């Protein structure tokens, strides 16, 4: 029984996923069931469990370790999950998404994400990666009659499976060197690597695998397509959740296990980080579809996050954690609003759909503005503190040029976030698209996200302390 504590949060989420599946099985045709509620219970439970496990450093089966680092990301994932559930309750029926499957898959994906950041064995990381990826592939194409959805899912699946193969091959090389896939053993073997070439190969292949998942340039091709074709609510979920989990594992593997080889991979990642920031923002400027635009923005944000990894310091790691939280709250808020305004016939994802939103829905326009300002890094929102933290970590390690690329690209990104703002406030509504009503719980979720955005922007000290404490778990 001693093995259980570390996986309790994951188990709770899995149970709620199973409950969601069962509920769907017992549902009469045409009956409405509050399946989102089951998910909410599970996620709140998992969040509470994570809270109680804080500082306990529980370990399970030698391959799962609920250290503070994993728990911090668990909490981020729970926040993402809770907001997704709240928004989904509005959206799912309207968009003709099969409810039971949708909720179950989302929850399974979250459990995979939690496992991924808590795993201390490369093979378990791979397993978790597959659990979350398979669920997300299906979620992308969950609207069966949608050609775009199917195409997006197909592309996502193909490139995802392709990258998984690279990741796995990297694991095989690590295994070749260390005779084990446990992170600590691999780390030891790498530190005294007799086979330098093999070690390099392992690092390179693992990096490619992660780069696909976090959509870093040049492995970002799938991102805009998958984000555009998926139902908006799924885009909101995967753009934040998958990123949080992949970055969590990335940090754990590269900044602890592979830290001895820092000299080899840091320069490469530095170049990738710079390219990712530039491509994400520059191409983002050209988009007229809001989901696609936010997809490129998420690529750019991956670049900022990579900067934290490149800094390869305690500060850098903590900055990545903090930024993940900031980004998750703002991005799920922004995409959540897009999702809440869309219907199956009219997805409300073109720039011009936002024309005159301020007149029609002042509250939503105000919330959207806050989220976009946070993504753009304006004070006093969370985005500013997040960027400050990341850039401070980079500057401290002497990466002035990357920091400058970062800040300049964030100016460019402001340009495209402002395009949405211009539409909402400064453009007259052309033909009124029927925008659906937004329910109370969804509004409450958005309001909470906004409060979090301001809280993290004005009084981030507590949360930063937690982040700093979390990264002490991985040395």
């Amino acid at each position, binding site marked *: 029984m001693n093995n259980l504590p570390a996986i309790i949060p994951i188990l709770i989420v899995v149970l709620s996923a199973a409950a969601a599946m069962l509920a769907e099985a017992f549902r009469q045709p045409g009956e409405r069931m509050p399946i989102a509620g089951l998910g909410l219970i599970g996620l709140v439970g998992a969040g509470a469990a994570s809270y109680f496990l804080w500082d306990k450093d529980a370990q399970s089966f030698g391959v799962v370790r609920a250290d503070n680092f994993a728990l911090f990301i668990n909490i981020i994932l729970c926040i993402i999950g809770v907001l997704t559930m709240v928004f989904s309750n509005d959206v799912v029926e309207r968009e003709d998404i099969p409810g039971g499957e949708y909720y179950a898959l989302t929850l399974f994906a979250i459990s995979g994400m939690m496992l991924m950041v808590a795993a201390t064995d490369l093979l378990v990381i791979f*397993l978790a990666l597959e659990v979350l990826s398979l669920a997300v592939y299906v979620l992308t194409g969950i609207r069966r009659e949608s050609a775009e959805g*199917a195409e997006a899912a197909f592309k996502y699946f193909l490139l995802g499976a*392709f990258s998984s*193969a690279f990741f796995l091959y990297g694991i*095989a090389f690590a295994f070749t060197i260390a005779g084990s896939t446990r992170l600590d053993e691999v780390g030891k073997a790498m530190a005294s690597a007799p086979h330098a070439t093999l070690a390099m190969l392992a690092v390179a292949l693992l990096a490619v695998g992660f780069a696909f998942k976090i959509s870093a340039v040049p492995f970002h091709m799938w991102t805009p397509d998958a984000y555009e074709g998926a139902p908006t609510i799924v885009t909101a979920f995967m753009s934040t959740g998958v990123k949080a989990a992949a970055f969590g594992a990335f940090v754990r593997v590269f900044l602890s296990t592979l830290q001895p080889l820092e000299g080899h991979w840091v320069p490469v990642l530095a170049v990738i980080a710079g390219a990712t920031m530039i491509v994400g923002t520059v191409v983002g400027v050209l988009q007229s579809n809001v989901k696609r635009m936010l997809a490129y923005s998420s690529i750019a944000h991956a670049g900022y996050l990579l900067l934290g990894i490149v800094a390869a310091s305690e500060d850098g790691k903590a900055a990545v954690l903090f930024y993940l939280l900031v980004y998750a709250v703002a991005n799920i808020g922004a995409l959540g609003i897009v999702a809440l305004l869309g219907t199956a016939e009219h997805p409300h994802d073109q720039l011009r759909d936002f024309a005159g939103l301020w007149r029609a829905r002042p509250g939503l326009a105000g919330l959207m503005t806050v989220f976009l300002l946070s993504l753009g890094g304006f004070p006093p929102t969370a985005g500013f503190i997040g960027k400050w933290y990341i850039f401070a970590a980079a500057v401290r390690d002497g990466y002035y040029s990357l920091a400058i690329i970062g800040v300049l690209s964030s100016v460019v990104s402001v340009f495209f976030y402002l395009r949405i703002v211009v539409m909402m406030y400064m453009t007259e509504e052309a033909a009124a698209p029927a925008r659906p009503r937004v329910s109370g719980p969804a509004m409450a979720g958005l309001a909470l996200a906004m409060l979090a955005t301001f809280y993290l922007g004005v009084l981030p000290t507590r949360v930063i302390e937690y982040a700093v404490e979390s990264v002490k778990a991985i040395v």
Partner: protein
Amino acid sequence: MHLYPITAYHYLVLAAALFALGATGVMLRRNIIILFMSIELMLNAVNLNLVAFSRLNGHVVGQVFALFIVAVAAAEAVVGLGILLAFYRNKETLNIDEVNLLRG
């Protein structure tokens, strides 16, 4: 004819060759089914690596891993084919060049 003993090196090279073949296939072939097969080839190249090194190191861990990966690959294939089916229903084609609804 003189036979050289088969060493770890040979397995590595064979696996690398298979992996490279698979990767090339994914990038160059146009038929979606062939793309799937290429990805499977890549995964099996990894399996070969694991099994060979497990044998050379004298423990079974790697072979267990290989079984593990086979299972995961099966799951992946199921989901992949499901998605492919949905895609085929909408597009009625298996040519990758006609995957063109989304672009920017």
